[in-house]
């Protein structure tokens, strides 16, 4: 009996220790010696629930911030949030750690970032993928936040055009995690691209899963059976290109593609799936890139050199903040003239000759 109690206590302590490992700021003193100019600048970052290994904005932002910190000769202090309840506490602990610049990730952290920024006007904040405008007055809610935004509709437009040209079935599909603007912007740009192709070529390629205002959503960002049946229902309609938008739900789409036994191409989002997830190499047509690593890197670097400006950054095709990934394995499966058309379309969008509408386009 006594032994069992002791064991239980031990297990409890172990669990607590493990939990502590997950949440505590990771600091490795002494690592800065590799760099020539060691600096006292303290860059920090807090993730949302997805964690720094989400193969999406947390991970890309983390990579960018780490790179900037290395170059500045300092160490990135990072905290992973296990749940939405941790955001506020994590931000507070980073502020008390003496952070100069705090990178926060996503829509979900927006409100807490604004609160923390208002309370600590001397700290600089970089908010990835959200305008920090929670009262919807068109202005960001705190002066010391730099929002990083990405007009992915432009790159998705290219992907839509490419998909429409590639599709033999004349049907392409898309679905999202939840109907957030940062998710639907992909789906909407994709549909605009398909529509543009139809207008140019006189074809009638159909988009399944997004009708211009609403579409198919799984209700969450978990890769599970819900996302898989959503993908399957779209595949059952006969599509041969599918664009899943939202963190890991593409893995469910891949399983659904395998089960269907048909040849269906996948379009990736955020990062180049061909590079970040080698298991997708056989089926990924292209990826819609969102250059979060680069923009976070630039923002943190600027902050470290005392050149922080809180002006909102909007990634576009023009400044390279969004782009379309190379075709890799699909290079010889896609008609070269289509590839040229896509390249020309990119120039036309940059030049403003073709208009892509989205909530970020002025």
């Amino acid at each position, binding site marked *: 009996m006594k032994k069992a109690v002791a064991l239980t206590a031990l297990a409890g302590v172990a669990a607590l220790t493990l939990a502590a490992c997950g949440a505590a700021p990771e600091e490795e003193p002494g690592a800065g010696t590799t760099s020539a100019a060691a600096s006292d600048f303290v860059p920090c970052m807090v993730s949302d629930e997805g964690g720094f290994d989400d193969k999406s904005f947390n991970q890309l932002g983390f990579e960018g911030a780490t790179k900037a910190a290395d170059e500045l000769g300092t160490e990135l202090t990072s905290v992973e949030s296990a749940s939405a309840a941790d955001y506020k506490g994590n931000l507070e602990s980073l502020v008390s750690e003496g952070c100069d610049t705090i990178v926060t990730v996503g829509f979900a952290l927006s409100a807490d970032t604004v609160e923390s920024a208002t309370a600590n006007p001397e700290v600089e904040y970089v908010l990835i993928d959200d305008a920090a405008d929670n009262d919807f007055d068109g202005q960001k809610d705190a002066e010391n936040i730099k929002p990083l935004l990405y007009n992915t509709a432009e790159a998705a437009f290219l992907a839509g055009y490419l998909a429409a040209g590639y599709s033999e079935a004349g049907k392409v599909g898309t679905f999202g995690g939840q109907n957030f603007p940062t998710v639907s912007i992909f789906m909407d740009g994709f549909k605009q691209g398909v529509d543009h192709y139809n207008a140019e070529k006189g074809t009638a390629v159909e988009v399944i899963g997004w009708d211009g205002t609403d579409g198919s*959503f799984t209700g969450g960002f978990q890769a599970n059976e819900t996302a898989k049946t959503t993908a399957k229902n779209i595949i059952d309609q006969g599509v041969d290109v599918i664009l899943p938008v939202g963190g890991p739900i593409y893995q469910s789409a891949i399983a659904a593609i395998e089960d269907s036994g048909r040849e269906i191409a996948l379009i990736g989002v955020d990062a180049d799936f061909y590079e970040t997830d080698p298991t997708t190499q056989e089926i990924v047509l292209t990826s819609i890139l969102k250059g979060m690593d680069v923009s976070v890197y630039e923002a943190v670097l600027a902050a470290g050199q005392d050149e922080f400006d809180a002006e909102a950054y909007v990634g576009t095709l023009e400044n390279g903040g969004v782009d379309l990934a190379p075709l890799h394995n699909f290079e010889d499966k896609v008609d070269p003239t289509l590839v040229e058309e896509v390249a020309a379309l990119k120039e036309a969008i940059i030049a403003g000759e073709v208009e892509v509408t989205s909530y970020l386009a002025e």
Partner: protein
Amino acid sequence: MTAATVEAPKAPEAENRRIAPVSWKSAVTLGVVTALFAVLLLVAPHAGDARFALSTSGDFFIIPVIVVPAMGTAWGCLVLAALAAVGAGLFTARGLRTPAWVPGVAAFAILLGFLSWAAAGSPRDLSIVGLLSGAVLLSVPLVYGALGGVLSERAGIVNIAIEGQLLAGAFTAAIVGSLTDSPYAGALAAVLAGMLVSLVLGLFTITYHVNQVIVGVVLNVLVIGLTSFLYSQVLVPDAATLNTTTRFPRVGIPLLENIPVIGPVLFDQTIIVYLMFVAVGLVWFALFRTRWGLRVRAVGEHPLAADTVGIDVVRTRYNALLWAGAVAGLGGAFYTVVSLSQFNREMTAGAGFIALAAVIFGKWHPVRAALAGLLFGFASNLQSVLSVVGSPVPSQFMLMVPYVVTILAVAGLVGRSRPPAAEGIPYVKG
């Protein structure tokens, strides 16, 4: 003595007879739902044809796509549902219990009417096979979880930890399945993981009499924390060897799989799905037709009485709890060796809690709980299929459908749900 005993109970018996044996609940619910549907049709008429596809290419014979005028069908279904509601009212007014087929007919009519309304004017076919087969797959973890819940709760242990058992099963199946390259080994490991969670639950609740709800909640948090931590620290860096499973292949049952509609839905599945149907029957048989089941139910209802007649309460509870963990763990394996070929942080996404709800509105009965899980899976897939076909209902609203259906079913159609009497009460041998 005999005269007295014959005389005495008469009064209460007569009183009992006067209590209405049937309630108006089902008639009222049917009426309200029918009225809501009528309002929907009046406020938002939706012209055009609805297209239903019933066949897949492998069937014995191909049923052509059925095209029906949407509003006509919807109104027809509404009339049928209204008749069923009136019928239920008549049965109740006469003091008769409404037979089960009446709400069944109404539910079917309203569903069909709703589908025609929602699919109206869309050029795309609404695949009935896709709707049903997706529903079965979505409900697999729920049914396994609910069976696990029934087993442990019948023995008097509140099983809040179903979520943890599912997640532990999914996680272990991913690792073992990847290392051995065998989905069978993965499924077996998932069973053991579920049992391990059960064992911890049992240790605290049965042996140390800790509050069962609290231990269950803590276990869920523990499993979520542990799996998420290990996922990012161990699985992600070495995903190719530790987190890439071979999935169970689908095995069609010859001949049966070629029957239109039912074939592809029920007889072209993986072994985990077939096992689910077997498990529902087995759990029912074990609980209600064996000595073991009688003992389990006895310790769940009145452990003191069970103890008095020589049943080892602690042992029986542990036994039932371990079986519960095994079943729920197997359900967890579904995530990583049937559905996907890898584990993801918190991938069960609350399925364990839905399973818990299924236990309650299945009235702690394995078959009813399994049906409740199927209902939830069906409602989930309904929203997905309709959004693909292009329904006029906003997606955010459609995502609520499974929960609304569950609430309606629990509140309206299921009668009083009575838990096992000794559930949640630790047994302290006095």
